[in-house]
C-alpha cells in the first residue's frame, strides 16, 4: 500500500480529478497549501508598488492506493497537472504500512478500496 502526495497548480485540479476518475481512482483528499520550488515567485502590484510573492498557492492531493494502482495514479496526475511551465508540481510516493476503514474496521488493502 502506498500513499501518493502530489502538489499541483490550483487551476489544474479539475483536469487532475478528471484524469484520476478515468483511471478509476475515486478516493482522494484535497487541501490548500502554500509552497514554492523552482518557481521562485511572481510579481503582483498593490497601489503601484510591485512586490514579489514567494510562497505560491498550490493544491495538495493525498491518495492512498494499493500497489497495483500506483503507476495508474501517478500517470493520471501527471497527465492532468502538466502544463509545461515551471510550477507544475511534484509527486511523492510514500510507503503506507497500515490502513483502516473507520466505519467497518477493515484493515489493509481491502480498506483502501
Amino acid at each position, binding site marked *: 500500500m502506498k500513499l501518493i502526495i502530489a502538489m499541483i497548480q*490550483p*487551476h*489544474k*485540479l*479539475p483536469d487532475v480529478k478528471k484524469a484520476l476518475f478515468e483511471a478509476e481512482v475515486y478516493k482522494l483528499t*484535497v487541501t*490548500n*497549501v*502554500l509552497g514554492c520550488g523552482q518557481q521562485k515567485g511572481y510579481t*503582483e*502590484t*498593490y497601489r503601484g508598488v510591485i512586490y514579489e510573492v514567494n510562497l505560491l*498557492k498550490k*493544491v495538495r492531493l493525498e491518495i492512498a492506493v494499493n500497489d497495483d494502482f500506483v503507476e495508474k495514479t501517478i500517470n493520471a496526475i501527471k497527465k492532468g497537472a502538466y502544463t509545461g511551465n515551471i510550477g507544475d508540481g511534484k509527486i511523492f510516493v510514500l510507503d503506507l504500512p497500515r490502513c483502516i476503514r473507520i466505519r467497518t474496521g477493515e484493515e489493509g488493502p481491502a480498506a483502501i478500496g
Partner: protein
Amino acid sequence: MDLAKSIDIIWILLSSFLVFSMHAGFTLVEVGFTRAKNSVNIVMKNFMTIVLGILIYFFIGYGIMFGKSIGGLIGTNNFILKLLNNSDTTNFAIWLFQAVFAATSATIVSGAMAERTKFYSYLIFCFVITAFVYPVVGHWIWGGGWLNKLGFIDFAGSTVVHSVGGFSALAGAMLLGPRFGKYNKNKTSNAIPGHSIPLAALGVIILWFGWFGFNPGSTLSGSSPAISFIAVNTALAGAAGALGSLVYVWLKYKKPDASMVLNGALAGLVGITAGCTVVSPLSSIIIGFISGIIVVISVDFIDKKLRIDDPVGAISVHGICGVFGTLAVGLFAQADYARISGFDKINGLFFGGGFKQLLVQFIGSISSISFSFIIMLALFSAIKYSVGLRVSREEELKGLDITEHGMEAYSGFQIFTNE
C-alpha cells in the same frame, strides 16, 4: 426660489443619493453570490459602471433620453447640461436623478455575466447601454416618446431600468456561455455557491434602502402627496416578495434557502416599481408575493431548462419580474390612487378598467425588451467575434482577480480549491 420648489429639489436630490447608494448594494450582492477569486473583478465592473455611466450619460445619454424628439423615437438635443435661465437649477437635479437610474440599469448585467467576462468587453457594453439602449427606451417611456403617448405606465422603471437590464443580461449570458464546470454532459446543473452570503444579505438590504429613493423619488416632487403611499407600497412589496420566495422554496426544496429569499425581496421590489403610484398597498402585497414566487420558478427554468448560467439570478429578478411588474399595472391599477399622482382615471383589469391598460402595458413591455435584447445580442456578438467576450479557460480557473487585475481580493487567505 419658493418653498415648494426647494422641497422638490431637495427631494429629487435626496432620492438621487439613495439610488446612488444602490450600487453598494449591487456590488455586495454580486460579490456575495460569486466566488472569492473573482471579487476584485466584480467590484471593478460595478464601480466602473457608476464611473462610466455617469460620464457617458452626461455627454450622450441624457440628450437622447430627454431631448427634443424625432418621431417619438429618440431625443436630439440637450446633450451637455447647462444653466438654462437665471437661477432655475431644477434640470441639474433631474439630470442627477436620471443619471443614477441609468447606471442602475447597466449594472444589472454585470451579475449575469460574472466570473467569465473580459473586463474591457464589459466596459464597451457599459458605454453602449448608457449612451444608447437605455436612453432610447427611456425616451419612449419617459421622454415624451411614443409609449408615453400611448398611455404606457412605468412609473419608476420596471421596464426602463429592470427589463432593459434583465434582457440585456440575457443576451450577454447567452453569448458568453456557462461558467466552466456549471453544466455536466448529462444535462444536469452544478451549484457554484457564492462565497459570502452575509455580504449578499447586506447588499440586498442596502438595495431595498435605496429603493426608497428609486420609487418615491420618481414623483420628482417632494410636495406630491403620493410619496407616502409609494414608500409604503415599496416596503410592502419587498417584504411580500421575500415571503413569497420563502414559502415556495421551503415547500419545494424542503429548506429555506437564503439566497432565494434575498432574491425574492428584490423580485418584489422590481415588481412594484412600475405601478407603485397607481396601486393600493394591498395590491402591492399581492404583486410582491407573486413576484417572489415567479423569481424562484424563473431561476430554476433558466438554469435547468434553458441552461443559461446566471450566477446571481439577474435575468429572473430584473428581466422577468420587470415584465410582470409592468403587466401588473394593467391588472391592479386603481383610479383612486392613480389620480393622486396626476394620472387620469386609470383602472386595471381587476378594478373595472377592462383590458385597455393591460394591452398598452403589454405593447410597451414587449417592444422595450425586444429592442434591448436584439441590440445587445448584436453588440455582444460583435464584441465576441472581434476583441473577444469571454476569458480563456485557464484565466477563468485561475480567477479574474489575478488574471485581469493582477491582484487578489483576499490576499493572505487560501481560497483556492477549484471544483
